[in-house]
């Protein structure tokens, strides 16, 4: 008996082992086929190891055998929530390499579509975040407001999500005659509905208590780990490509780059809500002033890039998206690399979750806004 007492109360002799929990790849809170191996001590996370590759489809290899206009449709399937930005990045890269100046009309339409895509993406992220924390209501409200945007896309581009609307040198079609009216209707509608989001989730005391001060990322860490987009800006890291390296019609509009200093889960959440307001402001400045003109410039039948290396960065809904093309002068790229924002944002997760409870791991992961095909490519 005395021996047992000694073992129980003398902690030196008790041996513990690491406890591993495997989350995914089929798990509703990992937003796709992400697998996370979490090392726990009791309920406290010690470290995690993200295992990716469950949707790896070899897009970069496939692009080496496709011509430039053909490979654009694959970028839709990478980050399907910011499909238009990905399309645009490839098109801008090709246009810059060939030194083609697209008409002003194209720039305006691309910017409006970018911002609509950003709003739609953030709405869906809002649904998913609410669901990860156990609030089913957000799912219905966010997706209800997303449907009018999808209608606008479908009327103009012909598809709801993967629309392949950009071609090198411009757009595939002109905008639909109803486009401006529909966009204005939507902005009017959404200005009324967005405060509801605050009432439902951001103002909710349970949500606030759960997210404030959780998963803090400092500015230096954010830069060193390459965390961009709203997740990086929540730490005070000014990384908005729209401001730093303006493209399309962003030089013509006035908008604010929202920054926060706390870098916790709540501010990563709050910044995305504020970005939706900013996006609406950008659309309102542009929608009435779309200049007349062509919707595409005439390109050669076979597009061949000059020899060299070209890099183009755009701001997608998740952060800085980059396209790196190595061309050897043929009609298909020699090497094509997509710098996806989610890839860098995922690997900082290990730093954020040390010492939090396993239920909070899901909350932190939700506010990093991961889209797994964007990471896996």
């Amino acid at each position, binding site marked *: 008996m005395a021996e047992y007492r000694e073992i129980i109360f003398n902690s030196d002799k008790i041996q513990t082992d690491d406890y591993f929990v495997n989350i995914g790849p089929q798990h509703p809170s990992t937003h796709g086929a992400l697998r996370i191996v979490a090392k726990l001590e009791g309920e406290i996370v010690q470290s995690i190891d993200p295992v*990716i*590759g469950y949707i*790896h489809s*070899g897009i*970069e*290899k496939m692009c080496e*055998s496709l011509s430039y206009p053909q490979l654009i449709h694959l970028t839709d399937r990478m980050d399907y929530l910011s499909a238009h930005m990905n399309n645009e990045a490839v098109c801008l890269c090709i246009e*810059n*390499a060939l030194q083609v100046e697209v008409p002003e009309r194209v720039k305006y339409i691309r910017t409006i579509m970018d911002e609509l895509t950003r709003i739609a993406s953030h709405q869906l992220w809002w649904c998913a975040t609410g669901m990860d924390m156990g609030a089913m209501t957000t799912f219905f409200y966010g997706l209800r407001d997303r449907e009018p945007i999808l209608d606008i896309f479908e009327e103009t581009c012909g598809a709801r999500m993967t629309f392949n609307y950009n071609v090198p040198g411009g757009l595939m079609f002109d905008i639909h005659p109803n486009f401006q009216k529909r966009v204005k209707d939507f902005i009017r509608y959404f200005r009324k509905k967005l405060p509801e989001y605050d009432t439902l989730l951001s103002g909710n005391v349970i949500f606030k208590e759960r997210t404030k001060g959780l998963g803090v990322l400092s500015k230096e860490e954010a*830069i*060193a*780990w*390459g965390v961009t987009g709203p997740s990086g800006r929540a730490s005070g*890291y*000014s*990384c908005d490509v729209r401001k*730093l390296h303006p493209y399309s019609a962003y030089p013509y509009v006035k908008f604010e780059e929202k920054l926060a200093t706390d870098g916790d889960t709540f501010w990563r959440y709050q910044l995305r809500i504020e970005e939706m307001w900013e996006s609406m402001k950008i659309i309102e400045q542009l929608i009435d002033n779309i200049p007349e003109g062509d919707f595409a410039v005439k390109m050669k039948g076979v597009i061949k890039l000059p020899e*060299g*290396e*070209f*890099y183009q*960065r755009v701001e997608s809904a998740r952060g*800085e998206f*980059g396209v*790196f093309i*190595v061309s050897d002068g043929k009609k298909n790229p*020699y*090497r094509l*690399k997509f*710098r996806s924002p989610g*890839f*860098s944002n*995922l*690997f*900082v997760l290990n730093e954020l979750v040390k010492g939090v409870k396993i239920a909070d791991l899901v909350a932190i992961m939700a506010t990093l806004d991961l889209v797994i095909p964007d990471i*896996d490519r």
Partner: protein
Amino acid sequence: MTNEELKLTIAKLCSSAEFKDGAQFLEVIVPAADLHHLCRELRHNGETAFDYLFCLTGVDYPTYFEVVYHLDSTRHRHVVVLKARTASREYPVLDTIGDIWPTAYSHEREVYDLLGVRFNNHPDMRRLFLEDGWGFPLRKDYVDPVRIVER
């Protein structure tokens, strides 16, 4: 800093670097032996202060592999592109720079997974996307008659 000034600064830090004016950015070809040293200098030097590595990728050339580092400075807002070449195609090895920019660890794993370039001193050199025993698919001589349907 302009590209010319950058050129002078980098030439001072690493005498064996070659320069090339690219289409967009200043491109610097660094010998593999000097890579880690130069990166450390560029990161901690107050004039250059390249603290943000935004893209790391590998390219397969017929006789060597090239790893391309895109560096940005959040203080000075200038960009430089570093390129390091492996000595051979059979045993491609470079030094890791993950201790300077931690984001490089995961990117280097990706380069290893897809191209087979190994990085010295990397703490966790495992496959990332694919399972052990696959070939390195982004190499130009990769063939897989079972899984790939050629068009």
